[in-house]
């Protein structure tokens, strides 16, 4: 049985290797408080394009039309807002950053303000992508599924790793020391944060 547990532990690791790297990078990005799209966007552009609002459309329907015009596919349309000039604005987030769209209704135009993340914040956003994001069968949804599988695989790898480590290598001082350190460090920090 241990041979199979080891095999499956190994296969899980290989199948999820790149996502484990993304998780590790995300932890370091968060710790370093890397600048986000509002503090220091890697790219910030403003473009405009023609856009006609159907005269009897609701704000929500307009958001849908904007998404179609910009070819943005999302699982759920974001809620529109009104800026101080009473212009309709809507924010479309994705792992790359933000597209803030302002409807310039009298001019029949859209203003698209793009804030693009650094590669580091991109990885941070990628690690946080869930399977509720992105329209079905888009890259974002597929990545969300991959994250879900990787998270479940990680739980398996932790459980199987503990099983293998404690079961087969308990006699090693390193195993005993590491296990004690894990329990003590986690326990103390959890208690302190509570």
């Amino acid at each position, binding site marked *: 049985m241990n041979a199979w547990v080891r095999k499956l532990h190994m296969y899980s690791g290989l199948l999820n290797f790149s996502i484990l790297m993304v*998780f590790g990078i995300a932890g370091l990005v968060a710790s370093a408080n890397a600048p986000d799209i509002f503090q220091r966007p890697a790219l910030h552009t403003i473009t405009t394009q023609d856009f006609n609002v159907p005269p009897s459309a609701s704000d929500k329907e307009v958001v849908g039309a904007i998404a179609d015009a910009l070819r943005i596919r999302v699982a759920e349309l974001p809620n529109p807002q009104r800026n101080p000039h009473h212009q309709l604005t809507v924010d479309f987030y994705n*792992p790359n950053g933000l597209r803030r769209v302002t409807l310039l209704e009298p001019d029949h135009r859209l203003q698209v303000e793009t804030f693009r993340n650094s590669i580091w914040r991109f990885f941070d956003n990628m690690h946080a992508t869930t399977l509720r994001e992105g329209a079905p069968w888009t890259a974002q949804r597929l990545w969300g599924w991959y994250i879900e599988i990787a998270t479940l695989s990680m739980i398996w790898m932790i459980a199987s790793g503990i099983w293998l480590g404690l079961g087969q290598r308990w006699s090693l001082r390193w195993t005993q020391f590491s296990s004690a350190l894990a329990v003590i460090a986690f326990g103390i920090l959890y208690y302190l944060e509570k």
Partner: protein
Amino acid sequence: MYRTIRTLHLILGLVSSLFLLLYAVSALQMAHRVKLHPTVTEEDISLPSGMEARPLALQLMKERNIDGEFGQVQSNPSGFRFNVTRPGAQWTVTYQTATGQTHLHTERRDFLGMLNRLHHLNGLRHDDQTLNAWGWALVMVSVGLLLLGMSGVYLWFRLHNERTIGSILLAANLIVSLVLIVILRS
């Protein structure tokens, strides 16, 4: 070299295990929007009038066993409001400047709520050193995870019998993830 890497993989895995389990379980809670059930208490207190926010917070921290990070102060016509936050609890203080009447809203997180907050806790420059301690733990666990992955690949590669199937799995992983990353970044 193989034995050293294998021992390193064992140590890193065991030491990080509970932290990684926390992140994985809380990730599932967030992905599936599992409801959290904090315990909420409300209390009205009389304090001196005309206090400023920070001295008020410090007084409450001393007298009411409140501890955590002092958040942004939001002014309103009758006074102000602020939060004091730590992973296990959040206190919302609403103060009326003219009368000193203070409303204290306390939320104590349940176990999943605690995991959720710890998942989001990061950074090394908090005023509260216990929060910084968790920040350092995150740094070490993140580095540990990167080393676990790389050492794991090395350990697999040294097993000749597993090279074929392992290569297929690793190649599949790299191809799928790189393609998705390139598409999403473009």
